[in-house]
């Protein structure tokens, strides 16, 4: 069955199911209520599917009107944390996994367990990945339904560049200091013969500035394989000066300054961090969320790969997000109806899997997503990577401040202005007092 035919068939089944089937037979609200639904922004395919789903929900529940508000992810928290603190939060709010703990601890969200227990069959909780639910568990409660989940690590490679270099495609048995580094060296080239390197083994998103911070290199995907860690488990002490962390950082920074297999900082900035998309790097940080973004580069032939192993094992950071009902909601019952409906197998499959944009928090929807046309051949690897996935190290109240401080120092090191040891020492000196203050608060 072709992808388009499959999409039409699956969509048709879902629409008929939701219009005439069990999902529509939920408790009808008695009065007309308006739900404020705060979400982040997505690519066009998701937004279109999402709007369709919300409209279909409002047809099925004519007494509920869902008003969507959208704010870009990097500034989402600053708007809605303030609203929640002021007692004016929306009914339903999107929450990214690293922030969930703070929202739950602050008491901004309602526990969904009573709703789930009311009708366990409809909630269909067994289909969710436990790792995704884990982000929203707090002191015996469950404060959100997860929407997506995925690994973020060295998970993609350029098939054409590997073939041109006569390299075998990455295997699960690869190690960072072995085959990965060797391949990176062979992929690094001066393709136009002007004396300057213009193709690298590793690059793009390598030190991406997510929400303004150069954070990746301090994440579990980069430090854990070497036994390193950015902070201890209780988030009270920075561990970057430990030998294992230094070994990890030296390896990654060494790719730029020692082995010259990753683009210099200035080049990365000049190319707006699109080194991989432009076909200029062999391997890069990958995650299932960028599948639809990479589809915008039709000449790019890429595939998913397992994260190589380090001396301490194989790791990848697992991230995700979900939707929660705030304590400020005047209509939590109706908000639950919407949430359950949207996060159902059909909802997640229709909005996320069929738009090709997301690795869904439900296993059933995830498998549908893997069949989408622009999803790479080995997309199943992302699902397998969850087995060696680990949650972010930093999820406490000082996360943003620590990342901001570390990012400034990391930037200097990336530019070659400080050594790894200097950088780690400076970060520790600045971060420890922040962690100490946060622990006191």
């Amino acid at each position, binding site marked *: 069955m072709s992808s388009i035919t499959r999409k039409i068939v699956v969509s048709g089944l879902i629409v008929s199911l939701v219009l005439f089937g069990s999902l529509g037979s939920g408790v009808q609200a008695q009065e007309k209520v308006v739900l404020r639904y705060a979400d982040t922004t997505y690519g066009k395919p998701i937004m279109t599917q999402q709007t369709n789903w919300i409209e279909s929900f409002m047809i099925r529940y004519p007494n509920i009107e869902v008003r969507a508000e959208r704010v870009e992810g990097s500034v989402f928290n*600053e708007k809605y*944390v*303030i609203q929640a*603190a002021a007692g004016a939060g929306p009914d339903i709010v999107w929450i990214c996994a690293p922030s969930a703990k*703070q929202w739950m*601890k*602050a008491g901004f969200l309602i526990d969904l367990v009573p709703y789930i227990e009311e009708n366990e069959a409809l909630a269909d909780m067994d289909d969710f990945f436990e790792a995704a639910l884990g982000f929203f568990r707090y002191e015996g409660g469950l404060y959100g339904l997860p929407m997506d989940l995925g690994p973020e690590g060295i998970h993609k490679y350029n098939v054409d560049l590997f073939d041109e270099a006569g390299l075998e495609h990455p295997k699960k048995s690869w190690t960072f200091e072995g085959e990965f580094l060797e391949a990176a060296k062979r992929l690094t080239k001066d393709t136009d013969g002007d004396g300057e390197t213009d193709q690298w083994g590793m690059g793009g998103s390598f030190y991406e*500035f997510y929400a*303004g911070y150069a954070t990746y290199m301090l994440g579990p995907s980069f430090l854990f394989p070497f036994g390193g860690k950015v902070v201890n488990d209780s988030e009270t002490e920075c561990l970057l000066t430990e030998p294992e962390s230094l070994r990890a950082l030296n390896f990654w920074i060494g790719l730029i300054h020692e082995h010259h297999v990753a683009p210099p*900082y*200035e*080049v990365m*900035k*000049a*190319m*707006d961090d699109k080194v991989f998309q432009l076909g200029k790097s062999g391997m890069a940080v990958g995650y299932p969320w960028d599948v639809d973004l990479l589809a915008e580069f039709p000449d790019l032939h890429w595939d998913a790969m397992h994260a190589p192993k380090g001396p301490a094992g194989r790791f990848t950071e697992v991230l995700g997000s979900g939707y929660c009902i705030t304590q400020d909601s005047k209509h939590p019952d109706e908000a639950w109806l919407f949430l359950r409906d949207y996060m159902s197998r059909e909802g997640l499959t229709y909005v996320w899997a069929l738009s090709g944009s997301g690795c869904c928090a439900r296993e059933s929807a995830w498998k549908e997503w893997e069949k989408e046309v622009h999803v790479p051949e080995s997309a199943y690897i992302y699902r397998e990577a969850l087995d060696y996935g680990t949650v972010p190290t930093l999820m406490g*109240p*000082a996360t*943003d*401040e620590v990342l*901001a401080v570390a*990012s*400034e120092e990391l*930037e*200097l090191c990336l*530019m070659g202005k400080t050594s790894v040891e200097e950088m780690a020492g400076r970060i520790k000196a600045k971060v420890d007092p922040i962690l100490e203050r946060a622990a006191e*608060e």
Partner: protein
Amino acid sequence: MKEKEIKIFKQRKISKLRKKEEISFYLFILPWIIGFFLFSGGPIFATLGISLTDWSLFASPHWSGLSNYTRLFTDPLFYKVFVNTLYYVGGRVALMVTISLLAAILLNQKLPGITVFRVIYYLPAVITGVALSTIFVQLYRPIYGPFAYFFSKVGVPAPSWLIDEKWAMPALILMNFWIIGPNTVIFLAALQGIPKTLYEAGQIDGANFLQQFFHVTLPMLSSITLLITVITTVESFQVFAEPYILTRGGPNYSTLVGALYIYRNAFKYFNLAYACAFAWILLLIVMAFTGVQFLLSGHWAYYAARRE
């Protein structure tokens, strides 16, 4: 006796007129005063109260006295931010006042099509700070950016504008070249208000262009220069969009200025109380600077009305 009566009559007349003018003045500013107390005054004074607590948004506030203010003075970034802010304010005020005055003098010439030039000079001012910053992100882009290209064509190594500690702040200051329009218009209006007789008198005395500029133009523009300097100073202390979009305060905090640090603490780290304390210190600094400017102005600003 008659003279005295006339004086009293005149005083009464003036006093009535003044009263009328005062009433008009208060009526004119009434909407602003109402707006201020309704929408701004409350939040502003609330920040003073919040600054005396430990409120982090994620937990209830507790009274913490002056701890946020004492923390400010032990925060190494506070001093860095303070120096950066002064650097930006100093650089921007000097640039904006000087360049807009020079532009106004050029645009004050009687040349065919001068109106077109006046419009062209003013036009960039209608672009918001965010849009302008987005444009400059591209202009300053290393290696492939237009500025880098220009430098490569003239054989001069291009500065790494936004990723070099030494160049990041000058880059933020230099982009203000684009928004000299409003100041230029004010200077232009003031230039056109200078009596021609003063220049004629200067010419009769044999004054050349530069002498006329320094002894006629500048003194006659002094009150407007003061106004523009004060407004530009206050504006510069509030700079946010440019460093937020272009540099995010980096590299190595070299462009972390007051408003950006307040924003970071309040809305990124959720240290709301600390951000409020910083905001009050910044307010006091701005007030001190403005006060000093007014005090010093007595020595160099000329007000025709006061002289009369």
